[in-house]
């Protein structure tokens, strides 16, 4: 346990001490009798990790399990890390301030490739060796889960096991089996051998193939409504309802779309009950709806009507994210009293939108924006990608044309006096488990050239243009399709000072490039085109969606043929073998 007297002094010397104190409302009983202690770690700051719905679900699920206590730990800011080192304090859990070695299992949730160095940063602060092979019986089992497990190859060697898929299934199974094996007095190696047979569990020392674990019936799946309410401000400081998992749209660049399939919904009545409980138990002022494409929820209008009634009674604001352009419903929008609208056409022309399978037409854009502006929208946020396969100058010009169209429509139909347009472009990153997983990423020079063009062309009144850092996109792409050799690169990058790489102010491209060079690896090996017949680093994972389907989609992309939303008719991606779509 940590020396609280020393900690008390340290907390006064760091920024936002509330990040490190725990004590939130609705804290589960972590002093209850237990035979298994799990520490769930998030490889980013408290305010980011506490906003993560997956971590929230798993934390409460484990704490609601008799005999199991689950605690949390987040990556401390560099000022806190320096103080911990200075005073010889190891990284600890928030609830009981235990060191990592006092836990049976330490689980990392990793949602972003640029968080890899933060995992090592936390391990280093916790005083545990980086490589699984160097951690004997004295150390806890260290496992990883989260969206990055679509290709865990670059970080495999750091973990005893990788939990692929949904934690309600694989983490629950892993913890239950460990309790049993611990009671039987089995060694770590013996336990891991048995664990390798669990659904969605890949044991690094055993190898083989693994099938992603999914919750079969989402409506009946565990969902906490008595959730922690942080005492300090966090990124998404609100209650969140999870409408459904998976996405029927099949945008060809989108990893989440394919990774979270099959598509499973929660019933409206279940969601309304959960909303009521969340409002009562948390006191949050805002309730948001979470999914990959909220507009696709089967009874969105009915759900919003029901939520509106409850929300108005309790002075709660409803937030509707992820509205898809082609199904924008002005009526819903008006009901939720929003003043801004976020659209993601992703590409500037119909041709390129067809290539990426963003099933949004020019007519959709025109009619949706007109409706929104007529209803008083005064802030429009537009998201695009640059560097998409087959992109031409015409496509970039198309982005500018859409922005000009919004201005024109506002002049003709706008209810508000002014219109603020925010345009944001991300750089295309070919991600595993997408039809574009074999594509090359454009060069850094091309990224700058395209961004410069847009900077010039979007110098318009009330238009703000922002863009993702090109250099960070290159490293993200290299890690996303990385292989096992990259663990050395990640370790080297961390050792030379790379942490919080997803924070612009902390990212250091030169250090990353130097780390690649030090390990004798060229990052362009990973950002270039990959032959479709080449074995991929993530082929050992059965994510449901088949390679044949992805190849077919890739072919259709090059032909400019769209694939319809699969709500009406199954497109045969293969995910339904993991569980039924549309219960």
């Amino acid at each position, binding site marked *: 346990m940590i020396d609280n007297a020393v900690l008390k002094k340290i907390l006064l010397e760091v920024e936002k001490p*509330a990040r490190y104190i725990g004590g939130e409302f609705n804290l589960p009983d972590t002093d209850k009798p237990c035979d298994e202690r799990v520490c769930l770690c998030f490889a980013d700051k408290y305010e980011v990790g506490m906003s993560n719905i997956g971590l929230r679900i798993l934390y409460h699920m484990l704490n609601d399990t008799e005999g199991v206590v689950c605690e949390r730990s987040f990556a401390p800011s560099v000022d806190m890390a320096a103080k911990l080192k200075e005073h010889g304090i190891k990284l600890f859990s928030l609830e009981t301030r235990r060191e990592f070695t006092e836990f049976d299992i330490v689980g990392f949730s990793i949602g972003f490739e640029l968080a890899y160095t933060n995992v090592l940063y936390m391990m280093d602060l916790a005083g545990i060796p980086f490589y699984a092979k160097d951690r004997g019986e004295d150390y806890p089992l260290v496992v990883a889960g989260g969206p990055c497990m679509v290709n865990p190859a670059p970080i495999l060697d750091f973990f005893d096991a990788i939990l692929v898929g949904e934690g309600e299934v694989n983490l629950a199974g892993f913890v239950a089996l460990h309790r049993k094996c611990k009671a039987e007095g089995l060694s770590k190696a013996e336990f891991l051998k048995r664990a390798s047979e669990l659904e969605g569990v890949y044991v690094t020392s055993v190898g083989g193939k693994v099938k992603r674990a999914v919750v079969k019936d989402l409506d009946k799946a565990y969902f906490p409504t008595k959730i922690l309410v942080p005492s300090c401000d966090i990124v998404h400081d609100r209650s969140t309802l999870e409408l459904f998992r998976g996405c029927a749209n099949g945008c060809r660049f989108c990893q989440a779309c394919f990774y979270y399939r099959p598509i499973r919904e929660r019933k409206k009545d279940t969601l309304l009950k959960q909303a009521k409980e969340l409002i009562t138990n948390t006191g949050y002022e805002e309730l948001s709806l979470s999914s990959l494409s909220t507009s696709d929820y089967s009874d969105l209008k009915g759900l919003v009507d029901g939520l509106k009634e409850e929300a108005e009674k309790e002075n709660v604001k409803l937030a509707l994210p992820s509205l898809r352009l082609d199904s924008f419903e002005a009526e819903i929008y008006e009901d939720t009293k929003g003043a801004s609208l976020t659209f993601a056409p992703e590409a500037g022309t119909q041709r390129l939108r067809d290539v990426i399978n963003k099933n949004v037409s020019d007519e959709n854009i025109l009619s949706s924006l007109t409706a929104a502006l007529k209803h008083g929208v005064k802030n429009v946020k537009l998201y695009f990608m640059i560097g998409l396969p087959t992109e031409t100058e015409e496509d970039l010009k198309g982005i500018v044309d859409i922005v000009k169209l919004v201005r024109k429509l506002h002049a003709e139909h706008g209810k508000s006096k002014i219109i603020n347009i925010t345009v944001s472009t991300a750089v295309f990153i070919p991600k595993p488990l997408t039809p574009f997983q074999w594509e090359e990423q454009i060069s850094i020079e091309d990224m700058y050239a395209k961004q410069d063009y847009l900077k010039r062309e979007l110098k318009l009144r009330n238009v703000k243009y922002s863009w993702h850092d090109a250099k960070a996109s290159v490293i993200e792409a290299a890690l996303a399709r990385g292989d096992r050799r990259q663990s050395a690169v990640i370790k080297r990058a961390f050792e030379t000072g790379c942490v919080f790489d997803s924070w612009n102010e902390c990212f250091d491209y030169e250090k990353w490039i130097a780390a690649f060079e030090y390990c004798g690896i060229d990052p362009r090996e990973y950002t270039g085109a990959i032959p479709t017949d080449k074995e991929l680093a993530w082929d050992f994972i059965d994510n449901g969606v088949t390679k044949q389907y992805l190849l077919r989609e890739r072919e259709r992309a090059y032909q400019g043929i769209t694939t319809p939303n699969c709500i009406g008719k199954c497109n045969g991606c293969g995910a339904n073998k993991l569980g039924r779509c549309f219960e």
Partner: protein
Amino acid sequence: MIVFRHRKTGEAGYLSHIDAMRVLQRTMRRMKAEVRYSAGFVPHMLTYTTTPLPLGVQSLAEYFVADSPLDNPEELLERFNASAPSGMQADFCAVTAVNPNLAAKVTASLYEVNSEVKISQEVLEILDMQEYFMRQLKKGQELEVEVRRKIFSLEKEGNKLYMTLATGNENLRVDSFVQSLSRFGVKACAGDIVRLEQLVSVDGKFVAAKEILQ
């Protein structure tokens, strides 16, 4: 109006004033207390507090006022404590017809300081001084300021120092003052300070703020 006296102890001592306000407003929402909202474009809950504590300083006597028509203090106290985090539990609730405006009425606070070493007699001799200078941050600049008139009482008991210092408009930052006492050997940081009570002046005497609410 409903008024709660709540503590801010343990982890809650490290919450900023804004964070603590948010926690208290969410407590009101969880306890389903009927509280009035402002009538502006973005309505906000009408609540009031007294002078904020420096970060790390603990308290047994923070006052939180909510504009509410509710009128059963015993029941409200119970509901508040069922809905507030453990570090912010209340021990007193009163109902008043109008806003008691405690921020203006509280003019002093009684603090307890737990020093790592025994408090020396020299500390108490500050009361015999005409002037007492200490370093204080003002608008980002560290200045030497004279604060003797803001020190109302000093008493010691072993390692503990009890002090009554000005609060409110004529505020004396307690953490800065305690830091200045290091010249007399006092070894304590903000985390070693507890506000025991907030005081109002009645007929020239300090009384606990809750006394004027009853």
